[in-house]
């Protein structure tokens, strides 16, 4: 278990000081696949480097299984990193790279050899063991970097956007591969990415970060279906934002009145705005349906139909102002031809909308 408590990192001094991490607190469970997700400059890599020991935080506490980490240099932390640039040692072979950590730990020769062989098999690089790292492809380098970091059996594996340099197909493969490795090894993975899809596919839990702060922590479904605030809703997936009046809340259920005058229920996270005010409600494009104008929650005019192969996007200008996008999966025989300019309605079930905190 990693306990991150009130970590703050400030670069520079005085007027030019820049706060990369602002009072960040997270608890990461053992064996968890935990992702730090956010746009570039949000502090996710800074946090990762702090855990690895390459950066000293200005304030805060960091403990692994109850033991303080901040007082130890990087080479005394049972934590290994997969670097974004892979950082393979160019003057060593693939096998020598993987053996490096074990040699530094002064493991017996026979054990080093056995572990290296095991790691080579694990990442399917056994035939390349004696190649220099410059002689293998990007995807292979990525796997060697992974094997090298896993070989000493760290308690925690830190991964700094390890897939960003790979092409689309290879990235998809490696995502599943990483997930499999995490299952097989039982090591805690802390994964840094700016790719929301990657985060949703692989993670047990995600921390969405922005401007050095944690905006929301939760499972992929939780984060996607119930974003707590506008930044999270906007950063992950596509979202429609609706202005609504919050009538009253009971627990997590909130009664809202939409701009069209229709009333429905939405989910409100605890600690959100109180009843009686204007709020923003987020609705995912695929959670809404397009219907006839009569009796729908939100009537409007169809402005654009965009065909995407797997699905079709309907852009609707609402009568109450604003634009709403509905995504409908394309099923054979179910194509409803709708003309641009036609009167249509938008419907979504009670409890689908999410009342945002801001």
């Amino acid at each position: 278990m990693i306990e991150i408590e009130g970590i703050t990192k400030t670069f520079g001094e005085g007027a030019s000081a820049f706060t990369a991490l602002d009072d960040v607190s997270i608890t990461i469970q053992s064996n968890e696949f935990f992702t730090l997700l956010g746009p570039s400059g949000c502090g996710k890599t800074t946090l990762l480097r702090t855990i690895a020991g390459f950066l000293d935080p200005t304030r805060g506490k960091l403990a692994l299984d109850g033991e303080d980490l901040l007082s130890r240099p990087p080479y005394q932390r049972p934590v290994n990193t997969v670097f974004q640039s892979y950082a393979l040692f160019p003057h060593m072979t693939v096998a020598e790279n993987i053996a490096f950590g074990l040699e530094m730990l002064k493991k017996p020769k026979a054990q080093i050899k056995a572990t290296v062989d095991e790691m080579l098999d694990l990442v399917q690089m056994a035939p390349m063991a004696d190649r220099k790292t410059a002689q293998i492809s990007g995807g292979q380098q990525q796997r060697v970097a992974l094997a090298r970091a896993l070989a000493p059996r760290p308690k925690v594996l830190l991964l700094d956007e390890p897939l960003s340099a790979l092409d689309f197909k290879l990235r998809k493969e490696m995502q599943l591969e990483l997930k499999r490795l995490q299952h097989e090894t039982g090591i805690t993975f802390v994964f840094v990415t700016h790719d929301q899809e990657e985060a949703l596919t692989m993670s047990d839990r995600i921390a969405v970060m922005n401007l050095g702060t944690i905006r929301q922590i939760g499972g992929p479904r939780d984060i996607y279906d119930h974003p707590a605030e506008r930044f999270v809703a906007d950063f992950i997936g596509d979202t429609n934002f609706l202005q609504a009046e919050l009538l009253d809340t009971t627990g997590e259920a909130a009664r809202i009145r939409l701009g069209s005058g229709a009333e429905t229920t939405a989910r409100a996270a605890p600690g959100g705005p109180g009843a009686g005010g204007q709020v923003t409600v987020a609705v995912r494009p695929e959670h809404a349906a397009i219907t006839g104008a009569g009796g729908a929650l939100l009537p409007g005019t169809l402005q654009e139909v965009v065909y995407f192969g797997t699905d079709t996007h309907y852009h609707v200008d609402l009568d109450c102002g604003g634009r709403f996008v509905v995504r409908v999966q394309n099923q054979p025989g179910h194509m409803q031809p709708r003309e641009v300019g036609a009167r249509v309605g938008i419907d979504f079930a009670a409890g689908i909308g999410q009342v945002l905190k801001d």
Partner: protein
Amino acid sequence: MSKGFDVRRQTGFNTIALTCFVLLYLPIILLVAYSFNAGDSIAIWEGFSWRWYVSAWENEQVQEATLRSVILACSSSLVATSAAVLAALATTRTKPWRGQTLVFAMVNQPLMVPEIVTAVALLIVFAAVKQATGYTGLLYLVLAHSAFCIPFAYMPVRARLQGMDLDLERAAADLYGSPVQVFRRITLPQLWPGILAGAMLAFVISLDDVVITEFVKSAGQDTLPTYMLGQIRRVITPEINAISTALLAISILMVITFFFLNRTRK
């Protein structure tokens, strides 16, 4: 090819380029050519011969001066390179500290201070030391040469350290390598081409030095360049050409060696 501005198509480009090359290389070509002169003159060609090479080879003063030059160049490049590696590490692998720029400037001081000034200063200091200690050995020259060779050794080492991916050292530390192990296993193997380049540069600079050597050397401590200077004051024979050509050949050989060393290591 683009039809934009191309310096090679400007009027007179070929003439200027050719003039530059002729001015640069013609004297050297003449020098090399006359080292094979059979006659006693450095200006009148009397046919091909190896006699001046043989004569230089058998000249005991040349032998002595050459040996002294090589010993001096070897030891001072060793001292200078060691100091340069430490200086380069201190100016690239530590957190920025107050006075870092000053140290950088001071390490490179021999490049900026006129050589004659350093020479006179060393002469005065060493004269006092010689009088106080009575020691008149080669150590003064080794010290002086080491000092002005440091920036030449420092520059390629520093460039190499700065060009190195810092993540490599981070990765090694992350994989339980202590600072000493990281230096030995990761930094040093990658630094070798830079260290070799620095050492070779320092070697050639030391081998070539006249001004400081002339001021610092004790009696009977001629190096090859100061011996040649002394000879030219008396009578000039193609033997000087032969020695110069040999020096030139050594320099070219070192450049080529270094080029290939650097290429295979990448």
